[in-house]
């Protein structure tokens, strides 16, 4: 009875399309619209971050050369006569990192796919709280606007690195970017954290409470499992970053000394004593390391879905995959100090964190083996999403194995803060997540916009991206092994590094190529929104629930009753079936077993 009533109201809403622009597109509480808002805002931020990286790559390849384009973007103050200013270089590096880590790969990734997939894949009408969901987006939007605004501050944006270690970030006299620019950074990040917490709580509550009938936890798609653990990580770790940020605000504004001690700057001995810069690092990385998995887990979740669907084969080791996600989630909380081996922390802790960090390699290896085995004896269909997902597995391996070196405290001594680290985290976290995000966009674009992305452009986009990605980051390992430090404005002062000048040029050219490739995607993204081929209801012959909803979005997702789930989501190529897929809504036949035990 209740269900019928609900159905009636839903249908009612479905038929009326007179909703005003402002509640339909701007202050929408519909999770599908909010997902699109996150995706589009995240994409805009990503382009800002990417262009910044291209600008500073120009300086790194051709130090001191004049480029009209630098002057065009940065003006006479920061690129006089087209030569990049060292302070601006640091600012670009800082904001590039901040945008990519937080705005693209945290909010852009989780915000898009958690919002889109959670209600659709668990069979819910919407998120537990539409209002909180909407607020989550608008806090994110505000935070993005403030971050962009900080680029226009007179003394320049924050430039103490994306990790904003004090005292550099606390003392405007140490670097101009630590003035108003840093204030805006801190305000922006505080709002960002609020957004992330609102979103995360909502995701957790929704997954726990709003699963449709028959959707047991052991029948959830791995994407949902990943997003679930991600949300828990975020809710537990982001508040710690907020406290770190607030204490920094106190130090900057109210004269406290949480992080400051015995400092003499610009001809003045500050009165602060007793604070410790290491405290900030502990607080920062207590978020910072789970943050890596806040980025990676959704990526792995998306990859699992895409690989299984397009291999027409169940994901191998479903339970082991869930176990790995949980293990990675747990371990991510006890490894943070591997960023701090040589900061003056007690060496005993170095040994402890080497141990815990290396443990993460085990569940990660299990995941990789499971992906590879899912391909084994599959019937692989290379949709654009699928090739991005395979690319993601490749970068996850390449970046992951160098993690074994960096986790080793003894080896980190010589590699800490060199280009080896830059290569490592860009490949394992940056590339993997970006490739997975592309996989997700190509796969679920029809669900978001009702149209398909152009396939050929997708292929072109992939190959250019994949070639340039390795072209940029693979050589950086070698620079790192030669001892080239990161965040250096130029290396011309060092005869030691002169031999790597050519390699820097190669890297920059690959980066420009990769950058251009993204404009293909952008073109495809916008063009297909209006003129792409219309998508059928289930374009990839997938089992999960989102493909049982109508192509045209309606409030409440399903026009009639909510679907009932009868099986796990990976019944691809199940023997004895006519089709090579069995949607989750199809009841089990007599004697048919479900899940991993199904044969």
């Amino acid at each position, binding site marked *: 009875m209740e269900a019928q009533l609900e159905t009636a109201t839903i249908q009612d809403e479905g038929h009326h399309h007179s909703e005003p622009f402002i509640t339909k597109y701007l202050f929408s509480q519909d999770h599908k619209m909010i997902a699109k808002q996150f995706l589009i805002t995240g994409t805009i931020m990503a382009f800002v971050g990417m262009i910044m990286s291209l600008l500073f790559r120009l300086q790194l390849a051709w130090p001191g050369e004049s480029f009209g384009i630098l002057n065009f973007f940065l003006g006479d103050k920061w690129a006089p006569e087209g030569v990049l200013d060292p302070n601006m270089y640091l600012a670009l590096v800082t904001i590039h990192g901040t945008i990519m880590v937080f705005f693209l790969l945290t909010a852009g990734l989780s915000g898009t796919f958690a919002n889109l997939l959670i209600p659709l894949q668990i069979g819910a009408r919407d998120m537990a709280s539409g209002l909180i969901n909407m607020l989550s987006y608008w806090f994110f939007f505000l935070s993005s606007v403030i971050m962009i605004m900080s680029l226009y501050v007179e003394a320049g944006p924050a430039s103490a690195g994306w990790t904003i270690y004090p*005292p550099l970030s606390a003392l405007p006299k140490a670097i101009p970017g630590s003035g108003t620019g840093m204030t805006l950074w801190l305000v922006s990040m505080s709002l960002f954290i609020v957004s992330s917490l609102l979103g995360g709580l909502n995701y957790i509550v929704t997954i726990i409470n709003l699963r449709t009938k028959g959707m047991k936890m052991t029948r959830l798609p791995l994407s949902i499992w990943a997003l679930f653990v991600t949300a828990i990580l975020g809710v537990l770790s982001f508040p710690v970053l907020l406290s770190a940020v607030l204490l920094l605000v106190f130090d900057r504004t109210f004269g406290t000394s949480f992080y400051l001690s015995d400092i003499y700057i610009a001809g003045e001995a500050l009165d602060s004593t007793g604070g410790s810069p290491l405290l900030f690092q502990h607080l920062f990385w207590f978020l910072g390391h789970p943050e890596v998995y806040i980025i990676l887990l959704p990526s792995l979740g998306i990859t699992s879905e895409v690989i299984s669907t397009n291999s027409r084969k169940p994901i191998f080791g479903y339970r082991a995959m869930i176990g790995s996600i949980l293990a990675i989630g747990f371990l991510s909380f006890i490894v943070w100090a591997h960023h701090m081996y040589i900061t003056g922390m007690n060496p005993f802790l170095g040994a402890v964190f080497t141990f815990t960090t290396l443990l993460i390699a085990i569940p990660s290896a299990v995941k990789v083996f499971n992906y590879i085995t899912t391909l084994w004896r599959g019937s692989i269909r290379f949709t654009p999403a699928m090739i991005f997902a395979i690319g993601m597995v490749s970068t996850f391996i390449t970046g992951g194995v160098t993690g074994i070196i960096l986790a080793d405290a003894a*080896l980190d001594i010589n590699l*800490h803060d060199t280009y080896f680290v830059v290569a490592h985290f860009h490949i394992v976290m940056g590339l993997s997540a970006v490739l997975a995000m592309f996989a997700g966009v190509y796969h679920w674009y*029809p669900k978001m916009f009702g149209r398909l992305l152009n396939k050929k452009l997708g292929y072109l986009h992939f190959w250019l991206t994949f070639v340039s990605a390795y072209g940029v980051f693979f050589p950086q390992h070698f620079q790192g092994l030669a001892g080239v430090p990161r965040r250096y404005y130029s290396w011309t002062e060092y005869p030691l590094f002169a031999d790597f000048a050519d390699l820097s040029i190669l890297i920059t050219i690959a980066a420009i190529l990769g950058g251009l490739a993204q404009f293909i995607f952008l073109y495809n993204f916008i063009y297909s929104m209006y003129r792409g081929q219309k998508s059928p209801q289930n374009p990839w012959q997938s089992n999960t629930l989102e493909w049982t909803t109508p192509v045209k979005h309606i409030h409440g997702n399903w026009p009639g009753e909510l679907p009932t789930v009868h099986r796990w989501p990976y019944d691809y190529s199940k023997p004895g079936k006519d089709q090579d897929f069995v949607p989750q809504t199809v009841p089990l036949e007599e004697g048919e077993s479900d899940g991993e035990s199904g044969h």
Partner: protein
Amino acid sequence: MNILLAVVVVLGIITLTQLIRVFELTKSLNGTKDNEVTDKENNGIANGFMLYLIGLFSFFIWLVWAYGPFLLPEAASVHGEKIDLLMNFNWAIIITSFAITHILLFYFAFKYKRTKGVKADFVTHNAKLELVWTTVPAIVLAIVIIYGISTWNDIMTDEPEDALTIELFAKQFDWTARYAGEDGVLGKSNYRLISGTNPMGLVTLETIVEKLAELEKKKAKLELKLSNAEPNGTIAENTEEKIRKIDKHFAKVFAYQKEMEMDSNLFLTGHDDIPVKVEFHLPVNKPVKFFIRSRDVLHSVYMPHFRAQMNAVPGMLTSFYFTPNKTTDEMRNITKNPEFDYLLLCNKICGAAHYNMQMNIIVESEEKYNAWLKEQPTFFAEEARVDKELKEIVASN
């Protein structure tokens, strides 16, 4: 360069638009659907992955061949050799697993591409296989962990008692190395004593007295300014604030002086200290313990050839010890580079000139080292010289 870049960009854009047009045209001609993959495309991509695999491995081999010779030479310190061994051990494991997994990944993608009439195998899991690939990495990692941690503990403990002590002092944007001088003890330092003539804030009776005099002078100037300023105006307020700060500073230094006077030896240990800039020397085969300080922001002492790194943290004394075991001349032979020099770099972002905050290190025989050290002026002599120069400048004005 600009023109070249512009040409590349313009050409890129033209190619893109042309490609897009070609795609659009072919698509409308043969009527393929964007959610379906033709066999031709599918096989093309499968081949593409195999090609990519070969390309990626070739790229790796080329990089090793072309840039391998420019990587850091063998370690120039005792513990560094242990690190290099550990590193090579790790490389063996990593390159093996990278190669195997990549070959499997791309080969499976190639081999199991969709083929007409072949259905995918419905394999959900395999307990035995999964047990194997959880246990094998676990065992390998156990070895990596044990080897790694024991090396780390080796490096961080076992400090010899007779190590030579040197302080590395960081500020934006240069380094100072301070030797203990004849008494073998590094003098105390206090950041409140830092001034133009005493950039490291060394504690001697003279530096304290000078600092107190300097503060008094500053205060007198400010008081004069205050008496001329409009009462209760912003200038007066700011000046009062500055005076308060100076009073506080004065009180702290004064209290410190009283504290030091309890043991007058403390005043003397700094006199014979030897601060050097630009280049510092180390005796070969003798353990050196570095005490590392910073006076403003984080810096990091990075000496890549010795496999040594430690952050310089304001308000905190950090340290690192190692034994250099190859002289600069030996290393010049090894690298076949007559201009080779050991370097100290800053490796923690510290501001605009972070990229050029370096120092040369010369490792030489103990005799040469002692001869060099003898020529370096002590802090006391240096301060007196600078002081005299300043006085001369004042007098000539």
